[in-house]
């Protein structure tokens, strides 16, 4: 909090007001989108690495799933933080998009894009479909509302048989198709998002600008390969359910 004479004459500014005015500003909102995006990219990367344990067999992945479920309250704290980030990310981008539409009342008759990538131009659309996919994905594998019978599947150790239910889940071509579409759009979203948060957080210097723009789609492509491997291996019969 600050009360007394300030060096640049804004005596009425308090910390709370400063936070509000930061969020109200264009750049402040972008910081929120970038920071929440960074958390979500971190989750997406960790989730992929965790999932890939399915290729090590039934034992490691079921053990990993049991460990995550055993986190108890901590699991809900993590989920809470992730959902808060997701919510802030969506609300803030919607606000920015509304402002951007209002800032351009009349469109050009002819536009010839010079730099913007397809991923950059479709962030709102890809984001919306990803949200729909996320809801389906949570109902499919996390809450298992779509297949309540999966909750009764257990392996020899008595652990929840995540290994088998994931493979069985992906043997449905419709579910796999939607999954691949969702993951593809997510990675396209991130091919713009990864270089974007570095720009927004003020870390993109002239030296790293070009390598970053080049690397961003490759990093996103790597994530896509990691995510696509499991459904593709399941549907091709490389991974087989044990239940």
């Amino acid at each position, binding site marked *: 909090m*600050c009360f*007394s*004479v*300030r*060096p*640049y004459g*804004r005596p009425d*500014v308090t*910390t709370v007001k*400063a*936070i509000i*005015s*930061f969020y*109200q*500003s*264009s*750049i*402040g*909102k*972008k*910081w929120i989108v970038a920071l929440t995006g960074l958390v979500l990219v971190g989750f997406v990367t960790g989730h992929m690495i965790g999932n890939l344990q399915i290729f090590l067999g039934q034992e490691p992945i079921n053990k990993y799933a049991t460990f995550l479920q055993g986190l108890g309250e901590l699991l809900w704290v993590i989920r809470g933080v992730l959902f808060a980030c997701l919510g802030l990310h969506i609300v803030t981008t919607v606000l*920015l998009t509304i*402002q*951007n539409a*209002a*800032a*351009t*009342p*009349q*469109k*050009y*008759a*002819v*536009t*010839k*894009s*010079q*730099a*913007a990538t397809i991923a*950059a*131009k479709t*962030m709102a659309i890809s984001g919306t479909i990803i949200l729909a996919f996320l809801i389906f994905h949570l109902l499919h594998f996390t809450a298992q509302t779509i297949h309540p019978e999966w909750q009764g599947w257990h392996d020899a150790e008595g652990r929840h048989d995540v290994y088998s239910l994931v493979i069985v889940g992906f043997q449905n071509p419709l579910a796999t198709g939607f999954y691949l579409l969702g993951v593809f759009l997510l990675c396209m979203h991130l091919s*713009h998002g990864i*270089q*974007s948060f*570095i*720009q*927004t*957080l*003020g*870390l*993109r*210097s*002239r030296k790293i*600008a070009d390598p970053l723009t080049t690397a961003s789609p490759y990093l996103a492509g790597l994530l896509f390969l990691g995510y696509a491997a499991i459904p593709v291996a399941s549907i091709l019969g490389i991974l087989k359910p044990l239940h």
Partner: protein
Amino acid sequence: MSDTLNLTLKVWRQKNAGTPGKFVEYPAKNIPTDCSFLEMLDIVNETLVQQNIEPIAFDHDCREGICGMCSLVINGVAHGPERATTTCQLHMRHFKDGDTIYVEPWRVGAFPLIKDLIVDRSSYDRIQQAGGFITARAGSAPDANSVPIPKQNADSAMDAAACIGCGACAAACPNSSAMLFVAAKVSHLALLPQGQPERTRRALKMVTTMDKEGFGNCTNYYECEAVCPAEIKSSFISMLNREYAFAAVRDGVSVI
């Protein structure tokens, strides 16, 4: 004798901000390839005047590529198809005989249209007035190089200072964001010792004014960088993002 071109122009004509505008087709005949785009418009205007038609209104001043007065979105690209070139320095040899050329004004909410291809860019002036200056002592000129400045900073500051404030960045931005302009002005002074006393206030006030003027938000399309006649790099926007956040923190937690 140089070659000549016959072109078809589709020019945005609008009497004033309150009247709806439309494209009007004009032939541009016998245009020498040595002409600049503005000289081509001069020739077309000559023929329009002879036919008792109101000439096309467009902005221009120095016609040397340094004043930032000319504008025009030519076939969907601000300042036309040549990189790092203002409209006045764009020569007709970059067009082909028989081409149809669409000529539009900057279409940015914060640049209200005045007439035809002329828009009011005083919102950029107000952003500049909000903080794009330093306090300098009056009196005799100080000794040259009395303030040491790292060479790299001097070079980067000069790169940012190259901005001519033409508005192409906002015009090319699908979000009508003025971030490249503000980034150039804020970075230019933030990189130099002379700009330090107002550093925090400058970043806050210029960004606040930018928002108040109704410019959009940057979503990192980098269209601005591609059309900028002064080749201002989008990495300056990254620097502005950092400057603004640090300024907001200094402003929010300052105890003095």
